[in-house]
């Protein structure tokens, strides 16, 4: 899992956030092969700002709650972690508070898989998609939807500065059931 400091989860509440984003080696960003869309946006603060690696730019919604961010993949992918950058100090009433993450095959059968409440977050907030069962480390899905149900201080619209989605690395050797772990096997497993 990603390292998180000053996190206290009491019934799904997350306080604070990290300044630096540190992700484990066995995860990789999945969002490049995805189609991103949002339920509404203010001109100039559109969906591209969520993926531009720039923490100064943000997406601002412009409609009724809940605000939705949809991430659609071309095939079923395994996802493990969703990371948001939000900042209460900068955005105050625009900072999201209650977030629901849903997954499914498409808009018609999304099911909520995670629900959290952020309390004055300042930085990167990691939302793990794993269940308690070790078999449920990943969510295997076509689509992910991040729904902002409410904001701090009852704001109507919301700001999110960056979103990243992580999943496990694929096996570098194609068509093999398991990945190799020992040096002897790894040395002979590929040419370069």
């Amino acid at each position: 899992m990603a390292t998180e400091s000053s996190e206290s989860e009491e019934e799904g509440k997350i306080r604070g956030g990290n300044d630096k984003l540190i992700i484990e080696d066995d995860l990789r960003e999945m969002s490049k092969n995805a189609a991103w869309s949002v339920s509404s946006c203010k001109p100039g603060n559109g969906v591209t700002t969520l993926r531009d690696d720039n923490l100064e730019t943000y997406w601002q919604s412009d409609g009724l709650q809940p605000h939705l961010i949809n991430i659609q993949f071309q095939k079923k992918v395994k996802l493990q972690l969703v990371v948001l950058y939000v900042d209460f100090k900068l955005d105050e009433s625009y900072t999201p508070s209650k977030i629901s993450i849903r997954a499914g095959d498409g808009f018609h059968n999304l099911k909520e898989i995670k629900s959290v409440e952020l309390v004055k977050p300042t930085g990167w907030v990691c939302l793990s998609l794993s269940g308690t069962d070790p078999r449920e480390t990943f969510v295997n899905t076509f689509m992910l939807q991040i729904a902002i149900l409410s904001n701090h201080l009852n704001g109507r619209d919301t700001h999110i500065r960056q979103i990243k989605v992580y999943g496990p690395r694929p096996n570098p050797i194609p068509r093999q059931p398991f990945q190799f772990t020992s040096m002897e096997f790894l040395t002979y497993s590929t040419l370069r």
Partner: protein
Amino acid sequence: MENLLANCVEKNLSQFMFTNAIFFCERLLAEFPSEVNLQLLARCYLSNSQAYSAYYILKGSKTPQSRYLFAFSCFKLDLLGEAETALLPSEDNVDEVPGGAAGHYLLGLVYRYAGRKNSSIEQFRMALSFDPLCWEAYRELCSLGAAEEASTVFGNVAFQRLQETFVTQRINFSEGANINQLTDSDKASRDTSLWRTEHVPGENQQDLKIRQLGADIPPDTDRQLNTNGWDLNTPSPVISQVLDAPPPLLHKNMLRSAVEGSLMSVHGGRRIKFSEEMSAEATEGSGRRRSARIAARKKIPMSQSFGKDSYRLHLSPSESNCVPSLSSMIEKCRIQSSKEATTSGQSISDIGSSVDDEENKNPSESSPDSSSLISGISEVLNLLRILGDGHRHLLMYNCQEALLVYQKLSLKQYNTHWVLVQVGKAYFELQDYFNADSTFTLAHQKYPYALEGMDTYSTVLYHLKEEMRLGYLAQELISVDRLSPESWCAVGNCYSLRKDHDSALKMFKRAIQLNERFTYAHTLCGHEFAALEDFEGAERCYRRALSIDTRHYNAWYGLGMTYLHLEKFEFAEHQFQLALKINPRSSVIMCYYGIALHESKKNDEALNMMEKAKLTDAKNPLPKYYKANILASLGDYHKAQKVLEELKECAPQESSVHALLFNIYKQLKLYDKAVLHFGTALDLNPSPSDAVKIKAYMERLVIPDELAMEENL
């Protein structure tokens, strides 16, 4: 004035003052426009890396020399068609390729870059027949896969060729000296100045070629001018003094010019032959080796040998006491040329006469001369035979043979950068990364400035997962030369090891920018694209690598892997087959070929391939694993289990082996063993997705167990 200017230009060229040389050459050309002066200006431009200027001024020239220079400029500017037309014989021109061996080599390169493989092979072979010391032509033939045995190429025919060229050279030497006496001193010095060879260590080999100008000039001879700007005004009696000046620079020049020195024309020009002899020694080595020999040489008191041994040429490194003759000979040539560089024709005549005297003085010396000549040539050819053999074996991927051949070298020669890199590459191709590591480390420590082969070294470190050392190497290489593609390849490998594939890709692209024809950089780019799962990009990169060098089997392998990922199994099979054709000893490729066959449902062939892989490289544990996998998927659990049990002995720490055993025992309904292996598999730190898989399998296992228990109850 013409003379003065010409000498000035020559001197500037020899001392690397290129802009000065260009300036004066322009004045010279303006005052005395002539073909010769034009060629001199072209040389100045080429030395100053202004191939475009040389191209423009030489356009349309007809003399062979100009054509060669023009072709060279075209080559530098990547105008391959024009280069070819310039080099090919036509009716109104001489009916052979200008520049002799050098011309053929250049033409071979042109054809190679244009993708005309057979023509290029032909040209390289011709270059070698003209001049057996044209080592680069042999290298190119090896990399095209069309090299003949080193013993034939550097054998008796070569021996005779070298002998006769050297003998004619010697004869010309004396005649030439006479001629010099007779001709107008001004003109003589002017003309000879044109044929001076410069040695610019910094520039690449092809630039140097240009300086070894073949002679189809009438009588005048080529000289070797030491870049060590000698005081050129001393009259002849001071010869002995001059001799004592250290020849290391000569040899350093030779070192660079070496590969090129051999490119000098074989017709005409006595001194060319000397340089060939010298370059023969330098040809396959680094400066260190030569300096050892030079040091040996220098010890011999030159003064006494000069008079008598002038024509004796002992080239054997071991017989240091016989060495002076060659160097003294070279000195004399140099002095000759330097004398002629001065405007005094008098010195020429002096030297000419002194040479004559030498000749006359030593009629009895002729037989020792020829015997020493013979032994010299045979020494050189022996060395070339070994190196050529080794190199050819390496590029045919007969790595064991290559290693054996290289062992035959003397310790001095073995410890040179080129040979060490070759040995390292041989180990690398055998997947013996530890030995490769030690060899490359040695090479890098001894020669931190030599970057050739360091990209392979970085790959070795990548395989060994030595992050720190790789990072350190990358830093060192960048600090040595920021503009060399090898350094950027090392940096890219460093990032790739840290799984930062985007940055790695950027670095490899930089390497490509620096040298479009650096095949390995393209392949590495392809690997990075594949790691980022951008298979289109990967394919593009691999194909580009293959368009540069069809025999780069890594790229074929990469393509095969890409197709495996994309599940295009027939395509994958085809690529792996091609890769195997080039490198038939690679067990890794055989394994993947087997996997592709299995996926295409050709299971028997797949199993055979795994057997073959096992036999090829006994140290590789993977063929057994893949074989077990195939057997398991075919339902043959007992055999699979047997194979895996064996494998477990060899590689007890491998989680995937235990995971597979767990599955097999589950199928065989041997639940205790299955559970045992389940536990071990999880203990051995599999990747998270694997851990999930294994646990999922376990769940399915537990339920039948519970059912059984309930029944018993």
